[in-house]
């Protein structure tokens, strides 16, 4: 961890993520107004009361901005966790079992690559209803496929190691070998995967909200705010630029942090996620 902090880019990334997290958690206390109450005339210009003005319904844009990352970040981190846990178990099991099971898993991964992401979520949301848990599962499944591939590759390398062979020779069961021998050795890899997947999930959630497939109004959300502000882009550019900047800085921060983490853990050195 100390090594990660010696890299300025990683430090900046971590700082961005922490700031966003703190703001999102503290939003109910630090926001000057409730994010959903109609306070004043629509489209008031920025001023002392409303720092970023009011939006097209007369809600305080600044308060909405502070609140706007909460649900998106919740979905992104939960989807990242779903992706990493599910992907690691599925990928390691495929790398461990090989044969028919591996074939099925890998064909599923390829199938997902062939279906456009947005279309996949649209079908999923239409089928199961538009709610936060459904969104977490849908985004989680999309992010999972990459994790399956990396952990399968790492698993195949680890299967050649003497300690895995020794466990096999002693007749240890598949789940025991996967959990005891393989999983601890891909922990580094999974930490980095989590940061990357969560960042990519956040971008996806914001895009989905923008398209009306993600988080539903009136929940304050950056993606929704960008969509609402699009019509007023010429007269009130701040209503689009402010939430867009939030999304950009958070995603950038998560990517820089993930890169720094991978660097500090020595994962770029083609070590297959081992020790």
């Amino acid at each position, binding site marked *: 961890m100390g090594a990660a902090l010696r890299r300025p880019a990683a430090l900046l990334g971590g700082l961005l993520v922490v700031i966003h997290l703190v703001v999102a958690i503290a939003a109910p206390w630090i926001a000057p107004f409730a994010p959903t109450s109609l306070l004043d005339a629509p489209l008031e210009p920025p001023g002392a009361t409303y720092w970023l003005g009011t939006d097209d319904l007369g809600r305080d844009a600044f308060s909405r901005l502070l609140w706007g990352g909460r649900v998106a970040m919740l979905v992104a981190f939960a989807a990242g966790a779903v992706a990493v846990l599910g992907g690691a178990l599925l990928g390691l099991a495929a790398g461990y079992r090989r044969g028919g099971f591996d074939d099925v898993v890998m064909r599923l991964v390829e199938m997902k690559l062939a279906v456009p992401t947005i279309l996949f979520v649209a079908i999923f949301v239409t089928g199961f209803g538009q709610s936060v848990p459904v969104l977490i599962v849908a985004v989680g499944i999309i992010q999972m496929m990459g994790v399956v591939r990396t952990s399968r590759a790492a698993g195949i390398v680890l299967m050649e*190691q*003497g300690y895995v*062979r*020794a466990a096999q*020779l*002693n*007749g240890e069961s598949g789940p025991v070998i996967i959990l*005891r*021998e393989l999983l601890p*050795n891909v922990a580094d890899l999974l930490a980095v995967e989590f940061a990357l997947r969560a960042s990519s999930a956040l971008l996806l959630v914001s895009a989905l909200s923008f398209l009306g497939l993600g988080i539903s109004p009136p929940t304050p959300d950056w993606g929704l705010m960008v969509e609402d502000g699009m019509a007023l882009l010429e007269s009130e550019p701040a209503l689009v630029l402010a939430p867009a900047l939030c999304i950009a800085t958070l995603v950038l921060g998560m990517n820089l942090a993930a890169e720094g983490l991978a660097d500090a853990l020595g994962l770029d050195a083609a070590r297959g996620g081992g020790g």
Partner: protein
Amino acid sequence: MRWGWMRREVAVAEPVLQVRALCIEWRGADGRANRVVDGVSFDLAAGATLGIAGESGSGKSTLARALLGHCRAGSAITGGSIHLDGDDLAALSEAELARRRGRVMAMVPQNPLASLTFHMPVGRQLEEVLRLRAGLSAAASRLRALELFDQMGLPEAERLARRYPHQLSGGQRQRVVLACAVACDPLLLVLDEPTTALDKTTEAQVLELVRRLRRARKGAMVIVTHDLNVVADICDRVLVMQHGRIVEQGPVGAVFSAPREAYTRVLLGAALRVEEASRAAPALPGPALLEVEGLGFRYARPSLLLRRAPLGPPILDGIGLSVARGEVLGVIGESGSGKTTLGGIVAGLLDGQAGALRFDGRLLPGLARQRTREQRRRIQMVFQDPLSSLNPRRRVGDAVMRPMRLFQGLDQREAARGAAALFEELGLEPALLSRFPRQLSGGQQQRVAIARAFAAQPDLLICDEITSALDASVQAQVLDHLAAMQRRQGTAMLLITHDLAVVWRMARRVVVMQGGRILESGATEAIFRNPENPYTAALLGAASRAARAGRPELAEARE
């Protein structure tokens, strides 16, 4: 004359290389200086060959690099001088050094594959050296490159020059690298572990080539190695290093026949052990514990269309052998002889397609998961690479306790006590139980792996090259503990190795394998003294060169 550089007369007594009180320090991340080479002084005359021997960590490779004016990142020459051809390398600038590399001094690095550019045909790599260093024209360098390949004993030079490094065998790569190094006829040629990565037969051929080069060249040669057999074979003088200092130096014959220092004797002891009596435990009477009959194995060729893949060439063919209770059977052969595959099949990692295995009178299924729990417990294995055989993320105590809990149903406390007892038997501090593998030395790691195997209380232990990744003095220690353990427990062993000294020491009976077949089998002593098969004789000849260098009376007796 075929040898271009033979024109000049050999051996002028004037020293080409003078090293005086050389110190090299390495500064770690914590800022503490570490002396890797400490006050080393020696001379080397033109035409002479010096062997630098020592174990890993003795500073021999650092010294070798310094002779080319090169230091690893973080280390620097902090004292003394290296005079080569009149210049002090320690005082030259990087640009001046670069101009001299290849022409005045050249190196053959340890790993030939890593030192060749992987995306360029080997011929072009050599031509590049000739163009840039020797200043030959494109046409001249092409001709000269083919000539050099030919001199290095590489057949069909034209075709070979068009190949990429990965298409060559280990021996061929080493010859290509040698060709690059001698291309400009340097005054000083440094070879870093030139044969470590090669098997015995290839090693002998490459050494023969180095010997020819040595005779033909005017310049001096330095060979860095941990293998005293290589030193005995090729060098005039030897310099033994430990902890960065010179322990002993002198003419090879004098140092090997009357080593003054204890450390030299340890290194020599490891190489000379062939001449010691076998200390293996005798077999117990009764029916055989393991019987292998007509065993055959082929790898399946991967096929896109067929589910049942066709089979490749035979790796094992008609193998038959038996191991009695408590007996240690040595299996020797070069890499590619199929000995590791044999071990893998007996252990249950691979399934043979032909023949049968019988264990304790009952038919033994091929793969470990088809065997009974009791059969799995009774057959255990120790692997070649000690580090990879232990899970880097689990404490070593876990590895030893797991089989006890699995097979003997012990609870955590009992298993911990059992593991501590095993550790003590193997000369390991019980405090090490809570360490992670990386915190242990190679010898300790391998003893932990042995402890894990014995934790299951096996009747048959398969040891696959278990000492080949260890230093000479550590090998002896690990084998001593293994032998003591084997005696106490009466465990039978299948000891797979290319190291004849290990077999001589541990096994009363031996089988010799080549190309997937058993060539010869019988009492170790009889086979080592009077090999019937010419291949066995060649294999044994390669191993006892150091012994002969140290003891002329043996050389006479044998030849």
